[in-house]
């Protein structure tokens, strides 16, 4: 009985200390941001039903999207390669093949009409001072602009893969990968770094990355961090809410709101888990067996003690 009391005292003091230095201290040290469930409540809803055929005409024609963006699934390539585009715009404009599934439709709808506002980077791109966001707003093609953007989104959605077919890597590369490298997944801002047979080819690739990064640095103010270990250094909740609205954590940051759908965000997290917490499934699996083994060990410990101490009492 006395031993039980001692155990309670030791446990209580241990747990109080744990609570104070872990949950309590971390809640005090770090700002807590609630998830907004990727609802983009500040953006207006889409009011019109889009038509993909008309949308296609707009995207390829009057909308002038393909002046900067490639659409690989429609065999439309970009006018410049990634390095050249980064030199011109600061960052390589994304390929639009899967934009319809990666990004939230409400977000796309607002983005087409007012990029700086939708991306929450108006502090950096102030039109009145002549600081234009590199993506030119779509002012309408003569008809009802609401209908036109709805059509364009319908087209983008029609060419995109289904959300089941969107892999974590595709989600990440589209939404984050043009600014962030992930060294542990061999991902660079200009694509996956493969293994090269000749040193010369590898150096040529590295130079491309460095050139791209120089433009990106000038555009963003600093090179956006490599995200290899972010799942361990920031954790799922932080990354997810940060994507939703970076300004909540870092007011004035040049990182835009990403605008992904809730489903894409989950896939981005999965990608980062694969990069920085690769062995999580193995850990859980091994954990079960080790726990079973060690519990059996403890039971034998109790039995042995009882046997030995039978004569001692």
């Amino acid at each position: 009985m006395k031993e039980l009391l001692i155990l309670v005292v030791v446990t209580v003091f241990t747990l109080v200390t744990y609570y104070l230095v872990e949950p309590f201290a971390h809640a005090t040290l770090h700002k807590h941001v609630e998830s907004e469930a990727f609802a983009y409540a500040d953006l207006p809803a889409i009011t019109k039903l889009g038509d993909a055929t008309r949308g296609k005409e707009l995207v390829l024609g009057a909308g002038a999207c393909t002046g900067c963006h490639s659409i690989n699934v429609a065999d439309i390539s970009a006018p410049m390669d990634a390095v050249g585009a980064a030199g011109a715009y600061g960052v390589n404009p994304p390929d639009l093949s899967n934009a319809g599934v990666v990004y939230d439709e409400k977000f796309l709808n607002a983005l087409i009409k007012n990029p700086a506002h939708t991306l929450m980077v108006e502090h950096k791109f102030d039109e009145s001072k002549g600081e234009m966001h590199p993506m030119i707003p779509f002012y309408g093609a003569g008809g009802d602009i609401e209908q036109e953007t709805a059509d364009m989104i319908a087209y983008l959605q029609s060419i995109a893969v289904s959300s089941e077919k969107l892999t974590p890597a595709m989600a990440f590369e589209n939404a984050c990968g043009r600014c962030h490298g992930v060294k542990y997944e061999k991902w660079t801002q200009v694509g996956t770094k493969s293994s090269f047979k000749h040193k010369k080819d590898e150096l040529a690739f590295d130079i491309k990355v460095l050139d791209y990064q120089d433009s990106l640095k000038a555009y963003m103010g600093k090179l956006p961090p490599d995200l290899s270990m972010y799942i361990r250094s920031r954790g799922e909740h932080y990354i997810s809410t940060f994507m939703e609205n970076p300004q909540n954590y870092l007011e004035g940051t040049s990182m835009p709101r990403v605008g992904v759908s809730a489903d894409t965000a989950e896939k981005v997290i999965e990608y980062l888990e694969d990069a920085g917490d690769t062995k999580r499934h193995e850990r859980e699996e091994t954990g079960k067996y080790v726990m079973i083994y060690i519990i059996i060990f403890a039971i034998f410990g109790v039995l042995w003690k009882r046997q030995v101490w039978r004569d001692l009492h």
Partner: protein
Amino acid sequence: MAHFTKATSIKDWLNQRLAIEKVEKVLASEYWIPKNINFLWAMGMILVVTFALLLVSGIFLLMYYQPNVDLAFDSVNYTIMREVGYGWLWRHVHGVAASVVFLIIYIHMFTGIYYGSYKKGREMIWISGMLLFIAFSAEAFSGYMLPWGQMSYWAGMVITNLFAGGSLHADGLVEWIRGDYVPAQAFLSRFFMLHVLLIPLAIIGLIGLHFGALRIPHVNNQDGEEIDFDEESKKYLAGDKAGSKVIRFANDFMAKDMMVVGFYLVFFFYLVFYHYGFAMDPVNFDPADGLKTPAHIYPEWYFLWSYEILRPFSTDIGLMAFAFAQVIFMLLPFLDRSPNAVPASRRGLFKYWFWAMLVDMIALTAMGKLPPEGAFSTIGLVAALVFIGLWIALPVITYFEKKA
């Protein structure tokens, strides 16, 4: 030369050369331990097991770790965590054990304080134990440098800066310790050497001293009773096991130890697989960057109490208070003036002193992590003053303590 006869068995062969039967008696079957003990007496064995876990996991990590500022972070987070089979397991075992070992050390220490196990000939047990605490602290700190993350770098910066001695401005000493103006390659190399060679050697030596220090005064018991070990062991060997106040180290004491170790390992491996975050600070998963100071720099939880004694004061006074905190526990056997070697509950004012010290150290620990602002600052200052006050009061209250 001794006379050797033809051996009748392997045991006999070894016995003639190594006296293994005698060694076994001295170390195990006739090494007598009091019977009147509780599970807190198993903390020593738990520490041995945890040290073994640290040593074994450390050996595996050492096979892949690269002590180079450009490679260290990736060798840990990429090579060991992703490429090496079960590398992640060794790292998590090592990280969690490094944290949990301090929890057990603190329980072990406070057990010693509560039961007065540092008195009446047991001073060297206490002193060697505190030397082990210092060696483990140095081991933990040097190990924390190795992943070369943000906390490694900045904790290295902050702690080595302490050696400037405030107004003494011994910047030359700081540079000498670092081997550079800032923590860099020379710093990492030497802390690597300290972590994998010099300090482990010191720890192993001190463990030997700590065990040796136990033999003459023997292990204390729950009531601080003075036991005639010769008399009681004779009683045991004569067959009166139930009546004897002593038990064999092996298997009697060992059996109880292993039961507690079993429970402990369930707790330990639960932490390793399902709750390891407390032992691996998130900030240290960002690679070291000398141009980017983290918003909050704090040590691991087991250093927080002494860190908080440093923090609430101005630089010079803080450093003195910090130095005081580092050495004062070592002097406990001499500051406690009472001859009573009984549990704190039977010792008048010391009873309150014990619980006040425990609560105060937990308060210091909590405040050491929180930002030094507002109420946290005040609580931290009060707790630091209480800590110093308690140690000043100790000789006085124990001097006037009645003989139990």
